[in-house]
């Protein structure tokens, strides 16, 4: 017994020593570092044309955009390389006047040649960004009449060029150094990127972190407040919160479910209000919409059968608002003057829904497939799909839940191999140009296979937007598109989701902004 006790003591002593050694190392973070913990780095590619939208979170600190954006998504002459821009009378030539004295991190001066090179590279055929395709179709040539002047020549008259090349969309407008890339090649550049943004790239450890260091002074943010900015990849939320509690990170991405816990401990919560719209749609068949959702009454009935307020409260913890317009990207509403009036909100009206179903000849319901999957930023995905299926069951609709992952649904949707089935997505909110770009893919018949709407009237309106050069007319067209999406019930808008972010207690004021896939760390790091 004595020996066993002695062994136990030795064991406990070893554990205690391990603990003491552990506590003694890796404790506090220096104040000069801003650390951000994200659940995903997306592709982890540090080259603008290859990263996709999500890399904007960190790439926007390394690179500058041709056209800057304010935190609320408006084009800004202060935030980009172009200090002003103008169009020719025929709207086919866009001249950008470049900021003088801007240097890349390697000391090379940023000139019009870099801008031309960057745009052509970012929209090239190897690009996987969201809007490379439309820009490739639209841009005829890029001229560089002077080192501080760039002219983008388009094939058709258009208003959209400055917005497509701005920070409000994807990475097509990011400016990269021509000489450096040509001398080291694409692969080296992707590992050791050089930009002209306020922070320089230091290190990337895939699956772990990306470290940036501040330049001395930058026209965007002045002298950066933090010498180092580190993005840490922490997939598990409990770990992110623990890191915040320990003071190891300053900003964490949070789920709606954990907000109360973290808030209770005194950590400030910042919301990206209506960061995405959770919307559902019916997969089209080879020839368009298929019964029973082909019948407008059925579509309205399915919308009326959802208690959105209850969904927002019980599934999304009250961090959501009922949505009324299918594909209605609300950040664009103010840009185009669209007002979502109270009468547009779908009431929870089961009796009327049942009557509509009976009128359409489906009094006893029908069978319907509902794809159920989780999405990044939407851990509640499957639960929501189950809840919606439950509501529809009250109309006699027998929903078969198909548990797959999103790519499987996306394939069925694009291949049109599951006509009439229902899927969903938490579509990132965006300004009017982003909303147009999305509608052009998801509500425009010519965009097969991604179309979900198949409505000739909407097709007609969307086809005019790109060619239109009168902003007021564009606004009117966009308003009409939203009105028709709602009045024809061309989808099932569920809720707008608010996305919470928690910060350490001593962090400065932070406007998380309303720019797609961009948390605007400029303000946090700004020394101005």
């Amino acid at each position, binding site marked *: 017994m004595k*020996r*066993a006790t002695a*062994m*136990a003591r*030795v*064991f406990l002593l*070893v554990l205690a020593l*391990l603990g003491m*050694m*552990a*506590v*003694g*190392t*890796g404790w506090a973070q220096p104040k000069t570092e801003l650390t951000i913990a994200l659940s995903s780095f997306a*592709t*982890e*590619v540090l080259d603008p044309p*290859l990263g*996709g939208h999500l890399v904007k979170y960190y790439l926007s600190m390394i690179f500058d955009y041709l056209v800057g954006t304010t935190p609320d998504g408006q084009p800004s002459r202060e935030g980009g390389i172009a200090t002003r821009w103008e169009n020719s009378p025929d709207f086919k030539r866009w001249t950008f006047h470049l900021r003088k004295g801007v240097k890349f991190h390697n000391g090379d001066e940023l000139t019009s040649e870099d801008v031309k090179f960057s745009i052509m590279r970012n929209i090239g*055929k*190897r690009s*996987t*960004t*969201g809007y*490379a*395709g439309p820009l490739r179709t639209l841009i005829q040539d890029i001229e560089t009449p002077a080192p501080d002047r760039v002219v983008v020549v388009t094939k058709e008259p258009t208003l959209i060029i400055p917005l497509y090349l701005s920070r409000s969309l*994807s990475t097509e407008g990011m400016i990269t150094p021509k000489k450096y890339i040509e001398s080291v090649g694409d692969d080296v550049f*992707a*590992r050791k990127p050089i930009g002209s943004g306020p922070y320089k790239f230091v290190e990337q*450890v*895939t*699956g*772990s*972190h990306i470290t940036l260091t501040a330049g001395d002074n930058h026209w965007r943010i002045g002298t950066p407040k933090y010498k180092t900015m580190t993005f*840490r*990849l*922490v*997939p*598990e939320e*409990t*770990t992110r919160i*623990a*890191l915040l*509690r*320990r003071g*190891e990170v300053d900003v964490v991405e949070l789920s709606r479910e954990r907000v109360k816990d973290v808030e209770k401990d005194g950590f400030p919560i910042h919301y990206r209000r209506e960061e995405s719209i959770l919307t559902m749609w019916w997969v089209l068949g080879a020839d368009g919409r298929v019964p029973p959702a082909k019948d407008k009454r059925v579509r309205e009935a399915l919308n009326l059968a959802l208690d959105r307020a209850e969904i927002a409260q019980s599934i999304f913890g009250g961090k959501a608002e009922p949505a009324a317009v299918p594909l209605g990207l609300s950040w664009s509403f103010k840009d185009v003057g669209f007002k979502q009036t109270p009468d547009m909100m779908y009431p929870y009206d089961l009796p009327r829904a049942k009557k509509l179903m009976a009128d359409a000849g489906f009094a006893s319901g029908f069978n319907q497939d509902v794809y159920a999957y989780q999405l990044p930023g939407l851990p509640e995905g499957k639960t929501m799909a189950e809840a919606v299926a439950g509501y529809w069951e009250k109309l006699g609709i027998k929903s078969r839940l198909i548990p797959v*992952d*999103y*790519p*499987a649904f996306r*394939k069925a949707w*694009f291949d049109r191999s599951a006509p009439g089935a229902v899927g969903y*997505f938490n*579509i990132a909110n965006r300004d009017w140009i982003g909303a147009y*770009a*999305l509608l*052009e*893919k998801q509500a425009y018949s010519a965009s097969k*296979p*991604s179309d979900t709407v198949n409505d000739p009237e909407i097709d007609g309106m969307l086809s005019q937007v790109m060619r239109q050069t009168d902003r007021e007319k564009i606004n009117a067209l966009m308003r009409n598109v939203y009105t028709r999406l709602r009045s024809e019930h061309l989808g099932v808008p569920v809720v707008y989701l608010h996305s919470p972010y928690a910060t350490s207690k001593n962090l400065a004021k932070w406007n998380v902004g309303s720019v797609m896939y961009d948390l605007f760390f400029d303000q946090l790091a700004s020394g101005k």
Partner: protein
Amino acid sequence: MLRFVAARLLQSLIALAIVSVVVFVLARATGDPLYLILPMSASQEDFDNARRYLGLDRPYVEQYLSFVGRAITGDFGVSLRARRPVSELIRERLPNSLKLAAFAMGVSLAMAFPLGIMAAVKKGTGLDRAAQVISVLGQSLPTFWVAILLVEFVAGRLQWLPAGGIAGFSSYVLPGFTLGWFVVAGLMRLLRSGMLEVLDSEYVKLARVKGVAERRVIWLHALRNALIPVVTFAGIYFAILVTTAIVVETVFAWPGIGRLAYEGISSRDFPVIQAVVLTTVVNLCVDCLYAWIDPRIRYAR
């Protein structure tokens, strides 16, 4: 002996070939990675371009043969997601997993030794039962749950240890314990049964009769002989720890090979999936082969 080794190597190569085909087919059966890589706004032209640039437009047989041809030279292709050579990603991540597995093995041995010896020496007592409960708990409690609890309370609430990432020795403690505790049961039982067998042997009885101190009997005579199967299985467990740490690496934000596999699977990154599976299969084969050809181990079996 040479024939024996050659036969084993041949078996391993056949196994590898079969595994490579299975993984290649299964990875592609899960779907098209472009549906994850390309944004929702991507057009058909974007899909066609990406497919061409990533080499996914070629016939499957051609893709497979090209993969095998390159894999033999250690070139597993380029990650579809990270756009970097997969061999480079593995070189970056594997050492992290090996270090974590080594630490976890240290933890499990540090727990299994006293528990196993105590259980054998105090067979049938409360201490024996307690030792077995502790070890079995490690195997039966879900690793994910243990990891989350440790992060939430030990790191987040008590703030004793780091919650995640690699930042010095202290960051090994929680993931190492989580991973190590899982294998304690196996090692502890092996040690306990080995000890019981040896303690009951004639030479131990003789030592006791001759008046050798009990401590010396246990630590010198009994333990040394009970160690052979433990060491063998510790080697195999080590390989298993390296390859099964996906959950632990994910919870503790540990950039290891398990996380790489998880990222590869969730993004349909075929070259990464194939490379990780083949690397781990090779490791396992090497370990098993080693275990098989080691004469002590063959005798132990």
